[in-house]
């Protein structure tokens, strides 16, 4: 098939899935957070609030787009655009699975494979700080300015430990192509311990994984590092003056960044789409089992509904899960879907972590945040890099 056509099809699929995930990640966050806090979360729009993202989008689109009088207009308009663009670009080099064959066409489950894929992501994300800085500056508002100053300092500071943590994982993978990085983690020690980066010899990258996650929290401005938009201090930080879709784009950018971050973590540290244990021990049946048990649970609750409307919604969910589980058992599809399942499961777990932490921790103070980056995170990441380097040099 023609390269352009193929890329266009893949781009369409990725964009559709990514944007849906963005919308539903927000729904999932609200729902999960609500359950952590012993409340229900969105439940009015659609069954279990499933249409809430749609309602939000409609609401935000139809809201009046305010342009405050005192802003620097050009930069004020550019900033949210920049934010969403720079947040969506990196996903183009992320591989979601191995090479597959669909309708006789061999292709990678990836938009494009750059041999400097990781550098590309770093390059794009390092520019991402401008959207925040410009938004704060252009708003001509003191809270926004303070927020963006904080943000600039924070993102630069945490980029260092982040990059160093990546470097130690790269030392073992010995490539910058994300697909090759994931492939370097295939296989198992003793037949069952996965050779993921976090377990890989000579130096398991657990420490750099932790550093990467913490710095990732900071890079994406999530609690406990959400100082640029710390609402109780700076009202809403850099996007205080934004409304309507411009405001929404900052939020979408934040969630897109989180998704990118979890994808990189999965690829670099958790072995990408490689299952937790070998297919010989039945790992390829895991997705079906998961979906079937989900289906059974939904069916059980549908038969004993807590609320009247669950009588219909939960069996519907059960049927959907059943179909999904059966799809994995179809030989032609199973080969494609199983790696995707593992990739999504690992990223999903990390996303859950992001939400969980938000429900648990308070916020750092600005100076504590900077001190944490420079006096704990960075030295730890450096030491880990050194040890990894020595061990790789000795054993390789």
């Amino acid at each position: 098939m023609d390269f352009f056509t193929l890329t266009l099809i893949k781009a369409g699929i990725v964009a559709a899935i990514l944007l849906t995930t963005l919308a539903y990640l927000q729904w999932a966050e609200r729902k999960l957070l609500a359950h952590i806090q012993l409340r229900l979360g969105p439940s009015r729009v659609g069954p279990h609030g499933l249409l809430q993202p749609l309602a939000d989008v409609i609401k935000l689109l139809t809201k009046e787009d305010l342009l405050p009088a005192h802003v620097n207009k050009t930069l004020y308009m550019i900033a949210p655009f920049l934010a969403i663009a720079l947040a969506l670009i990196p996903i183009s080099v992320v591989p979601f699975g191995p090479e597959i064959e669909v309708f006789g066409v061999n292709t990678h489950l990836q938009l494009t494979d750059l041999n400097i894929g990781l550098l590309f992501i770093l390059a794009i994300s390092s520019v991402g700080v401008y959207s925040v800085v410009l938004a704060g500056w252009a708003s001509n508002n003191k809270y926004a300015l303070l927020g963006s100053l904080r943000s600039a300092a924070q993102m630069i500071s945490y980029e260092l430990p982040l990059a160093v943590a990546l470097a130690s994982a790269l030392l073992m993978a010995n490539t910058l192509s994300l697909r090759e990085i994931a492939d370097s983690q295939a296989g198992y020690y003793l037949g069952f311990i996965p050779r993921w980066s976090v377990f890989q010899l000579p130096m398991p990258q657990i420490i750099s994984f932790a550093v990467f996650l913490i710095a990732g929290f900071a890079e994406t401005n999530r609690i406990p590092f959400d100082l640029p938009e710390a609402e109780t201090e700076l009202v809403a930080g850099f996007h205080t003056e934004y409304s309507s879709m411009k405001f929404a784009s900052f939020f979408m950018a934040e969630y897109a960044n989180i998704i990118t971050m979890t994808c990189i973590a999965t690829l670099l540290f958790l072995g990408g789409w490689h299952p937790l244990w070998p297919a010989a021990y039945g790992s390829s049946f895991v997705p079906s089992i998961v979906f079937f048990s989900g289906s059974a649970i939904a069916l059980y609750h549908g038969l004993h509904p807590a609320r009247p409307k669950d009588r219909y919604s939960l069996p519907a969910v059960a049927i959907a899960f059943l179909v999904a589980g059966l799809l994995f058992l179809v030989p032609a599809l199973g080969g494609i879907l199983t790696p995707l399942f593992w990739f999504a499961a690992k990223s999903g777990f990390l996303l859950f972590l992001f939400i969980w932490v938000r429900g648990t921790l308070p916020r750092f103070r600005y100076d504590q945040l900077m001190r944490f980056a420079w006096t704990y995170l960075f030295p730890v990441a450096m030491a880990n890099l050194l040890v990894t380097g020595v061990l790789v040099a000795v054993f390789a």
Partner: protein
Amino acid sequence: MSEPDLSSSSLTPAEEPTEGSTSRRRMVLNMGPQHPSTHGVLRIILELEGETILNATPDIGYLHTGIEKECEVKTYQQVVPLTDRVDYLANLSNNLGYSLAVEKLLQLEIPPKAQWMRVLLVELTRINSHLVWLGTHAMDIGAMTVFLYCFREREDLLRIFEMFSGQRMMTSYIRVGGLALEPPRGWEQAVGKFIDAFPSKLAEYEDLLTKNPIWMNRTKGVGFLALEDLLDCGVTGPMIRAAGMKWDIRKDEPYSSYDKFDFEIPTREASDVYARYEVRLEEMRQSVRIIRQAMDGMPEGAWVTSAPNVVLPEREKMKTQIEALIYHFKIVTEGFTVPAGEAYVCIESPRGELGYYVVSNGTSKPHRVFMRTPSFANLQALPDMVKGRLIADTIAALGSIDFVLGDVDR
């Protein structure tokens, strides 16, 4: 409060220093009157260098409703609903303080059951107020979940208040002479259920905060003010107990038969935000203890005093006896008269010393009601707490003062 620099604390909003002046790097930030963490309409004029606060000037009065003036045109009993609106998170404490002052002027004897009921309700109010404080304070520092946990328990409390008075917040349940209504059927079960469950809920909050390193980083050593300064600023309540002063009006000048209850006064030495947090949490535990004692030893008897010229007669009597009807008519139309004189009564509200100074000129309306509200005095200590610290510390310090703007502005 130290002597403010008049030249720099100008009230014009967000005045930009003039170009080329040496103070060009100083930024004036208007925190409030609409700001997520000023809990109402408080405005703090912050002078910043970077994020360091050079000077903080609170500007109050945005919620000034002239309650003290309004009291002068209401009859004595009509003032009670106004006191609800002073400190709207601890309205029963305000009801009690005012009622005690008027009762002192009238020299009324309150039956034991009413007194014990009052203690119970006021302690429930203390828990209620502290829950709102803990929730919003934790929310300010970013711990969102604690906020919702606290409001879950507060909801139970508001239901109990509704059960007693028919109102969730503006209860007006404690009146001059006793209580407004007979305690409802089943209040023992409702209150009992709450205080049985509450200690485990407190433990839940503590799990999320007390040993949390981020929480400790944010609160320990923040908002410190030495005991002498606190006394000098007129600060009372949990804040002064967190500085090591073991002083609680419930113990030192017992009112409403608090002397018959057994409880501890928690104190800490550190005088920072964390110490205030610990003191208030411990106070909630002590309140549970007091409530349990009040429930176990609740005396039998009348819930309102027998003073026909002050307290409305029973419905049945009013319909059958002419004296009762006359009293009812007189109290409803013109209120009861209070002998000329003045009385100052202070009680320990959740925020500190809550004093009511009532001056009577012998008519049925007070000549002057002065509310010595704790938040007003406590807020004066804010500038000294935050000078030289960061913006984020202001948020923590503000939360630790636990002021209510209605209480500040009246």
